[in-house]
Every structure is written in C-alpha cells, then in structure tokens.
C-alpha cells in the first residue's frame, strides 16, 4: 500500500544507513554475560507483554489500555545496557522511557509483578493506581515517568542532564521516544536546548514507522529521523533497530560522547511496530506484507541465532531460559492478581507534598 502522497511504505532494513559516528573510539563489544543478559531481557519482555496483551487484557483483567513494544525489544534492551547504576546520586544515569520500552523498566530493577499490578490498577503498582499502563516512574530506579503528551519528556530529560552538567559529573540522561513525537514542539525545544547547552543526553528514537495509523512519511518529510540532527548541530545516526549488537554499539558510542562532555546525540533505530497502536487497535491500515517482512527480521530469533552460532547457548539453554521466564511470570501474575485495589480515599492523596 502506498502512502497517499505516492511515496513508498515502510523501509526494510536494507534501506537503513548505518551512519558512522564521528568519534573513532569503538565501544567494547558486549561480553558473554552481557549477551546473555540482553537475551534474557528481550525474551522476558516479549513474554511479559504477551501475557498482558494476549491473555490478561482479553480476560478483562487489565484496567485501561495496553501498549506493547513487540518487535522493538532490541532497542530498549541494547540501549538500557548503557544506563549506569549502583553508584548513587552523583553516579547513576537517569532514563525517561516511553510506552514501548518495557525492557527499560525491567532492566532498571522493576520486577514484573509490580508492572502487572500497575497494568491491573492495583495499590501495589508503581503509581498505586493513580495512573495506568506504562506511565510509571520511580526515582529510586532512576526512571522518570512520561505522560501521554508525547514529546513533553524531551525537555525534562534535558533538564536532568542540565543538573548533571551543573554538578560537573559524567552522568547521562537517556531519553526514549517514537518518530511521531519528533513532530512536537516540545521535542524541538528540548533537543535545541540540549544542543545549545551541550548537555549529556542520548536521544533514542524508536522509529517503528507508525504513529497510531500515521505512517512515518506523513509524519515528516525527511527520510530519516536522524536527518533532523543537522538542524541542531548534533550528531545523528540511523541504525537497524532489530540488530541488538548495532543498537548496543550506537548507544554506547553516544553515551561515551555525552560522558566526555561532547553533548547530545540523536540516534534513530529503524524497526517496525508489530502490533496495533494499542491492544484494541487491529492495525488494519498496515499492509499484511509488511508484517510478514518484518516478522522475518524479528530481533529475538535473529539474536538467538547469532548466539547459537557463537556457541554461547545451545537449544537446551534456550529452553531452560524460556521455562525459567515462564515460571517467573506465572508467579508474578499470580501475585499481581491477588493485589488489592487502592482505597477510594487514596484518590485525594499526594496532590501536594503534605498530602
């Protein structure tokens, strides 16, 4: 199906240019432990989202909408590997994920059961029932909660980075958003501010080619989101978002640049939204052939094959990982389903600091 203005539809991975970054320092390749960690989180995310979208939602157990990032896991996972943790307030990075970045929450230490409780509107969800689905945050996990107004998180992420610069640390602010959000004024103001102030931000754009039913060619006229970078005087790169090695390398380089004080980067990862906008959307506007094409590029089997070829895992290890994940999630779902709803009076709590 051609977009109405005659331009062709979604790009395949072949069309993506992997623009080389300006710095020559390569980021060390992930070691075995890192590779296994990435595989685990990609699979955990896939399964958790499956449970939410295909089971719990259909059973009527989810409150409100469901937004998953199926097919886009390599972006969240490959990027989140570079989020520095464990050193405290002046060491740890900060991250502003979007609704397709379930893996970021998991990798920052939010257990699946809390996410399930969140989706089910329970008192023990991250927002205690005050907000739903992926609008989660917790500063102890260094997660800034985004809001539905996409693009608003960009200046906020820049502001976090501003403080890192004010304190003279080498902390980085990671900011995730879709290609649609880049059309927003707040996105522009935030990126420009980060650029002119040379702030340590890594802007991670998940270009999954659809913003609800709006194809990327109706969202912007540039071919790549990374083309926007030259308007701000910052480096821009476009990478295959279904290749977790490539994501890992690109984000690693951008984070290193930021830590060296060289300012922000705009990284575009091209992928495909393998679902509707949300669980209730059947994405009838997407040509079936495109789903089929991108199914063949699923980042998880692709990564597994690479690890099998390296003999880092074998079939048995994969099956073991899968059953471990399913067991974990069985427990998490059972726990979450037993969680109480919040007390109605909680509606009035926490509007202000003193209640």
């Amino acid at each position, binding site marked *: 199906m051609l977009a109405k203005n005659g331009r062709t539809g979604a790009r395949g991975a072949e069309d993506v240019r992997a623009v080389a970054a300006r710095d020559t320092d390569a980021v060390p390749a992930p070691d075995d432990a890192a590779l296994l960690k990435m595989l685990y989180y990609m699979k955990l995310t896939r399964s958790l989202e499956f449970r939410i979208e295909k089971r719990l939602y259909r059973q009527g157990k989810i409150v409100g909408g469901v937004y998953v990032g199926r097919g886009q896991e390599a972006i969240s996972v490959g990027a989140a590997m570079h989020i520095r943790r464990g050193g405290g307030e002046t060491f740890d990075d900060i991250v502003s994920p979007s609704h397709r970045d379930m893996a970021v929450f998991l990798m920052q230490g939010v257990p699946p059961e809390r996410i399930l409780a969140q989706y089910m509107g329970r008192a023990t969800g991250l927002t205690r029932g005050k907000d739903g689905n992926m609008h989660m945050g917790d500063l102890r996990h260094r997660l800034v909660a985004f809001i539905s107004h996409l693009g608003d998180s960009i200046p906020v992420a820049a502001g976090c980075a501003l403080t890192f610069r004010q304190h003279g640390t080498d902390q980085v602010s990671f900011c995730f958003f879709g290609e649609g959000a880049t059309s927003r004024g707040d996105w522009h103001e935030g990126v420009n*501010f980060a650029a002119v102030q040379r702030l340590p931000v890594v802007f991670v754009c998940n270009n999954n080619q659809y913003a609800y039913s709006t194809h990327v060619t109706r969202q912007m006229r540039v071919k790549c989101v990374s083309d926007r970078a030259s308007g701000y005087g910052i480096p821009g790169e476009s990478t295959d978002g279904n290749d977790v090695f490539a994501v890992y390398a690109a984000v690693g380089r951008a984070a290193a640049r930021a830590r060296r004080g060289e300012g922000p980067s705009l990284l575009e990862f091209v992928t495909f939204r393998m679902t509707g906008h949300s669980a209730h959307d059947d994405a009838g506007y997407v040509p079936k052939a495109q789903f089929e094409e991108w199914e063949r590029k699923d980042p998880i089997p692709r990564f597994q094959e690479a690890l099998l070829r390296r003999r880092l895992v074998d079939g048995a290890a994969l099956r073991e990982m899968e059953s471990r994940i399913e067991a974990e999630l069985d427990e998490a779902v059972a726990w979450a389903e037993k969680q109480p709803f919040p007390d109605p009076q909680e509606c009035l709590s926490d509007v202000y600091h003193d209640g």
Partner: protein
Amino acid sequence: MALTTYVEAIRQGIWEEMERDDRVFVLGEDVGVYGGAFKVTEGMLDRFGEMRVIDTPISESAIVGAAIGAALMGMRPIAEMQFIDFISCAFDQITNFAAKNRYRWGAGVPIVIRGPSGGGVHGGPFHSQNPEMYFVHTPGLKVVAPATAYDAKGLIKAAIRDEDPVIYLEHKYLYRRIKEELPKEDYTVPIGRAAVRREGRDLAILTYGAMLYQALEAADVLAREAGLQTEVVDLRSLLPLDKDAILSAAKKTGKVLVVHEDTRTGGIAGEIAAIINEEVFEYLDGPVLRVTAPDTPVPYSPPLEEFFLPNKQKILEAARRLAAY
C-alpha cells in the same frame, strides 16, 4: 532607612535563596547577561555564574520542562516567563507534567515559575494578562500573587522552599511604584494565608495584586464620606485560598465585595462567592458582589484599557450598593 521597591524585593529574595541553597538556580530568556527584561535578575550572572543563571533560547516549554527535569534531579529551579502571558506556551508542561507528577508517581517537582502579570502599562493583549485561573484550576499547583514588597520577598522565598510547583505572579504595575522598608533578617510569608490590610466591620473587600491599592483608596473614601469602615483582605495566595480568612471576613461584616483585575467569568471571585455561600450564608446581609475586568482580551488603547481595568471609582460604586443593603 532604605526603602526597597517591589521588584528589588523579588530580586533580593531570589538572591538570598541562591546564596543560602546551592540547588537554587534561575533559567529564562535574557535573565543572565541582560539581568532580565525587568532587571529582576540583575547582577546574578556575575555573582553565581553561568551554571546557575542560564540564558535560554526562546522556548517556554523547554524552559519549564528543563526545570522539571532538574527538579527531579534534586535542584530548585526558578523558571522565568519574560511576560507571564507567555506561560501559555508552557501550559502542557505545567499542567500535565509538573502538576500531576507527585500524584502519579510520588516525585515532587519543587519548581517556581514566575513572571510579570497585569495591565495598566499600555501593554495590549499579550503583555497584560492575568492567567492565574488556568492554574488555580489545576490541582497539584500553587499560585501566589503578592501585592507588597514585604510579601514579594517573603513569598518568593516561600515559593522556592516549597516542595510543590508554585506559579508566582508578580504585578508589573507595582514593580517600581511600591516601596517599603524590609527587615534585615531572613523571613518567609506562608503560602495559603491572606493578610488583613485594613480592619472594619461594615463591609469587606477581598482582593489581590495591584487592585489592593485601589481597594485601600476606596476604603479611605468610604470612611470619609460615609463613615463606613471597610475590612480589606489581601488574599496573597490564590491556590490554596485562605478559606478561614475569607469566611472570617464574611462573618465579621456580612457584606463582601471581591475585586480582581482578572476577567469576570471563571475569575476567583466566583469561587469565593461559592465558598461563602456554602459555608456562611446565614451571616450574609447582602449578596457577594464582585468588581472585575469584563470578559474581553486586554485592550491596548488608553480609553479602552481604562474601561477594562477595575479602579477605585468602580469599587466605590459597588461598595456603596452593597453598603445600602
């Protein structure tokens, strides 16, 4: 003794808080090198440096958004809107991000968004607005509007120290017209508390901002010409409102007139009248009246702006009507 103007009081308040607390910093357009369009931040760049006095691009949304991000990282930013009229450009960040953050995920946003509001300076529709009610209508925010130099300093300090987002509305008409002697010691003015500026039993005028002075002049006239003693209450804080002060004035006098420069429909006078009606109706000897600007944009030409703005004359007409009940 040295008298301090209203604008200088704001400047001192910010300066002292920046000395006292390293986390406090200022960002906005022309606030650094230029010292601010109204000189509120004059001298601060030299004293506190570029990391704490930041000249930004023309990006109100990013100014507030960045303030939110910095606040999440433990800082205490003061975001300036060069004219408060431009706060509309940051509406989303303020009402949807800052205001709801604590409620949704427990992370407070201790930011101050400040700027010059109000008319009477031939500013026209975009340099004279009183946007308070968009924010009074948003739970999670606080909104203050000082009318005296003492309060200007005390409230900016309170706002900076507050754990929640505060919209601090300075009235540009008062900047250099109001001066008083200020204490040397550190002090704050509590948010959520009104101040009785003049005592009386016959009727009460509740007001804020530049209208305080019009109300006080009207009270003088009423005393001279009719022997009426007017209680004048300076609200100072619009969210939270000092309900006790409002009810107390209503009970004491039985006759309440609310005066604000903001436009009529949806202005805070309606809210105050509703509160009085709900809680102390039995004490009233007459309806709650209001003197406000009409429901139009702020016009530019002097006769139009004069027609638009409440003033002593209009307050007197309403007060006399109320007194006659």
